[in-house]
């Protein structure tokens, strides 16, 4: 009965969005909540029906779109994509639920529902062209959300966001087409199915390098990796709360997910070849953006730069090229989604009340808004990687994984993360501690019920998965193992084969 659940997950929000066009705008918010709640339940059903014991793709559907050119509608999930899909459904739900009154709310909710289709589609697509379709299509709703509901420089921010990612994607497209050509050359059949590509012979080393580069440009802009990150602070700075939440929680994960899904297994030797340079870029990302975050006056920018910093850890874990690192990276994608999404929601809460995000305007909020301060504190600690919170598990595994590849770099990265804690603590101090200096803050209401409904589940997840990550980490681990095994098998240079340890062989035997 679950054969078509993925297609339903992808197209249900789109259908709902089209029907929503006819809705009265007073009841559109309720409609949005109902639709995204159903979508979330469907996502939970997907988790329920997902068999964690089976390796490989599940709920696979395949329909030819352009048979002559090998383009299929091919979707499926494994442990790597499953939880990101659930996360996407979850954040759309709480994002819509926590929407304040704003102009043109009908357009916003319809856009969000379209956005949801593209997000689920990206993570479910197993045909590379289909992936590319959703990948590109996800830009349009976000462009509109930032550009229409954003701050004063919204048009600049949204266009910059769009053009950066679009330009990166063009290189990705050429890379994809070259892969398709190489596959056609080797087998005589046109196919853009990732599963077929996994089965095909590995490309020669120098071709891998070029293709890795092309894919890298597409993905790195999205992550965003240093030095392609400059669009992100603008986008976050101008975006409305809902835009920032979706952007940080889900859209950035597309890039890191794509690294795991495409770059690593398709180009194992190139991945190994570029491991150290990318690790260095990651460490620069972690340290540099942490420093920039410290210098920010705007609390939203602090969270934005902290996002980039954490994405650096995810990239580091991904390029550890072993089970610990990649599992940790995938787990950290979810963790970072939850925590940064929550932080942006929290920033939205005070922005709603004061219409400013400057930290100098606040201070001493802990006495005025105690609940708010507590919840913020929880996520602040999670963000710096406090043990027993969700982020800690991911960061720890990422570093553990990379420790096997390079002690020095891991040490540097570990130190950098600790240094990174400073800016979060400093921001927390500026916002909450001390006397209430600004008279405007004296009578701020604490979190409302609606806001609590959105935030409390996130608190629960943050602590629950921090204490007991197994329900999520288990399936991820199960799917990462065959991935690493595949990388090991597909590697053609002896160095890469040695460095990418087969998870089937116990550690002592290596």
């Amino acid at each position, binding site marked *: 009965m679950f054969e078509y659940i993925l297609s339903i997950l992808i197209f249900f929000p789109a259908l709902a969005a089209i029907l929503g066009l006819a809705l009265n705008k007073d009841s559109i918010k309720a409609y949005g909540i109902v639709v995204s709640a159903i979508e979330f339940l469907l996502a939970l059903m997907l988790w329920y029906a997902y068999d964690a014991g089976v390796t490989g793709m599940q709920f696979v559907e395949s329909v030819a779109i352009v048979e002559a*050119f090998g383009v299929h509608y091919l979707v499926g999930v494994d442990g790597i994509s499953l939880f990101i899909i659930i996360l996407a459904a979850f954040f759309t739900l709480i994002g819509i639920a926590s929407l304040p009154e704003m102009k043109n709310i009908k357009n916003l909710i319809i856009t969000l529902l379209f956005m949801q289709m593209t997000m689920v589609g990206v993570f479910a697509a197993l045909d590379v*062209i289909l992936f590319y*379709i959703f990948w590109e299509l996800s830009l*349009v709703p976000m462009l509109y959300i930032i550009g*229409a509901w954003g701050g004063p420089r919204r048009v600049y921010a949204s266009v910059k966001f769009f*053009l950066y990612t679009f330009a990166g994607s*063009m290189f990705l497209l050429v890379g994809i087409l070259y892969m*398709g050509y190489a596959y*056609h050359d080797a087998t005589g059949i046109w196919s853009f199915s990732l599963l077929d590509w996994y089965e095909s012979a590995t490309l020669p080393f120098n071709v891998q390098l070029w293709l890795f580069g092309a894919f890298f440009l597409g993905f790195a802009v999205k992550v965003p990796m240093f030095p392609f990150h400059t669009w992100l602070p603008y986008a976050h700075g101008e975006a409305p709360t809902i835009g920032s939440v979706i952007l940080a929680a889900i859209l950035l994960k597309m890039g890191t997910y794509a690294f795991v899904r495409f770059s690593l297994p398709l180009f194992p030797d190139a991945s190994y070849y570029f491991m150290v340079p990318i690790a260095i870029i990651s460490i620069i990302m972690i340290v540099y953006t942490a420093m920039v975050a410290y210098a920010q006056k705007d609390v939203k920018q602090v969270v934005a730069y902290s996002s980039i910093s954490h994405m650096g850890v995810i990239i580091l874990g991904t390029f550890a090229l072993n089970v610990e690192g990649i599992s940790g990276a995938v787990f950290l994608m979810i963790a970072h989604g939850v925590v940064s999404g929550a932080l942006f929601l929290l920033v939205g809460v005070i922005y709603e009340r004061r219409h400013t995000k400057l930290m100098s305007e606040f201070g001493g909020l802990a006495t005025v808004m105690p609940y708010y301060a507590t919840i913020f504190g929880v996520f602040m600690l999670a963000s710096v990687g406090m043990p027993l919170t969700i982020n800690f598990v991911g960061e720890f595994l990422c570093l553990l994984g990379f420790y096997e590849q390079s002690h020095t770099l891991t040490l540097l990265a570990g130190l950098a993360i600790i240094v990174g804690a400073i800016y979060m603590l400093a921001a927390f101090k500026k916002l909450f501690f001390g006397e209430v200096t600004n008279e405007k803050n004296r009578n701020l209401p604490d979190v409302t019920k609606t806001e609590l409904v959105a935030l409390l589940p996130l608190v629960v997840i943050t602590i629950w998965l921090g204490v007991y990550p197994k329900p999520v980490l288990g399936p991820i681990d199960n799917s990462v193992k065959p991935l690493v095994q595949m990388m090991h098998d597909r590697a053609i240079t002896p160095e890469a084969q040695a460095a990418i340890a087969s998870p089937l062989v116990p550690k002592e035997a290596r």
Partner: protein
Amino acid sequence: MLEPIVVTLEELNLITLVPMCIAIFGALLIICIDLVKERLDKSFYLMITLLFLAVDFVAVLASAGLFEQVGSVRGFFDVMFIDGLAILGQLIIVGASMLFIPLALTSKRFHEYNYPEYFGMFLFMVGGFQFMVATDNLILIFVGLETASLALYTLIALHNRDKSFEAAIKYFTMGALGAALFSFGAMLLYAVSGSIEIAHIAAVVKADEYANIEILLVGVVMLLAALGLKVSLVPFHTWLPDVYEGSSAALAGYMSIVPKIAAFVVAMRLFEFLIHSGVVWLEVILYAVVVLTMTAANLWALVQSDVKRMLAYSSISHAGFVMAAILIATTQANSALFIYWILFSFTNLGAFTMLWVSRQKDLLPGQSSDHPYDKFSGMIRTMPVAAVVMGLFMLSLAGMPPFAMFWGKLYMISAAVNAEYVILALIMAINSAIAAYYYLKLIVYMFMKEPHYEGMQQYYMTNSSGALKTIIGFAAFATVFIFLALNPIMEFVTALVQKSGF
């Protein structure tokens, strides 16, 4: 003393002439009806035109069936040459004409549609373009080209705006230059090979092992310039933005599709054998023209302040993109050219019709052109559906998946990659990224700015009618869902191109 030539009727193979004759007969019929009974409504002539075009389309399809069975056919003293390219070219020409001529059904009155001759000339033009693609005889190509162009100049001039005369004269002058270049180039090819049939020329030149390469090159460059004037390759594009601006949006959209595909087919026939000749110079010249056309047009389009002029430059850029197929010259590339153009015609139909419905009688206060970006600002507030549809066409033109143009772009870049033109593929990709900006600009105006003019609604849909809305709806539907029909289109086109030996 000339020997008497005996030709039997079978040898004439008059069936090859049938599609063009249908169009021409239709044109003559319209003019005759006008002689008998005056003051018939434009809708009457329009429907007659559509009917003849439909029959014409079916006749071309029938010749496609014949082609499947027996292959290429020659006819009428061997000047007619019906192969896959001729059939595809004619299908696109007649099909696009059928899509664009109903744009005459506006709610406002335009005096050009009151002349039955408008429709007559339209059919003559279609016939001319059909002749142009259905032959490999340089003289017949020339005749077809000139017939069609003369009709087109007149159609442009009939539009009642000051700029229309300027546009028509400009186009006429450039067209005359093109005609001169074409005839001179053809003469040089004749001097080299002693033949005016492209197939013969190819054979003779090859047999001579490119002995007179200098003359050949000069001839080819002249032909390239002549065709470049029609296709609007940089640096022969200068007339195009002004002509688009001066002519009605309906005709400008038509001009962005039909004359170009006809010229592309001729270019394909002409350059195919030259590209494969291994003469490096030809490849270099074409390569330079392709890259220059794509890039320069994109850069110019960035700074336009009028949507119609932006679309004009964008169509130059698309032409450069497609010209790459002729450079690559593989079966996939040549098929990609036709597929791209089919997809392009649907999207451009939509975009230009959207401009056409917003054609108001007087210019907006403080504006010097018909469709400044400002006019569209805040459209999502005043006309949400129209804004979404226009946004859709812009996204499609930018190559956003899964809309129509994305597939064309995909297949074209894939053709470049498969032929090991990786640098060219990258240039094409980068150009797509540049192009995204100016399409996005209109979206920014429509979705992210406040309405600029009071009572935009009355300005905006001023020219719309049920028929135009239907056409826009159809174009939008095709733009979004054409990927479902892409497989049969791709197979049909590829089969025809392959069987013609291209």
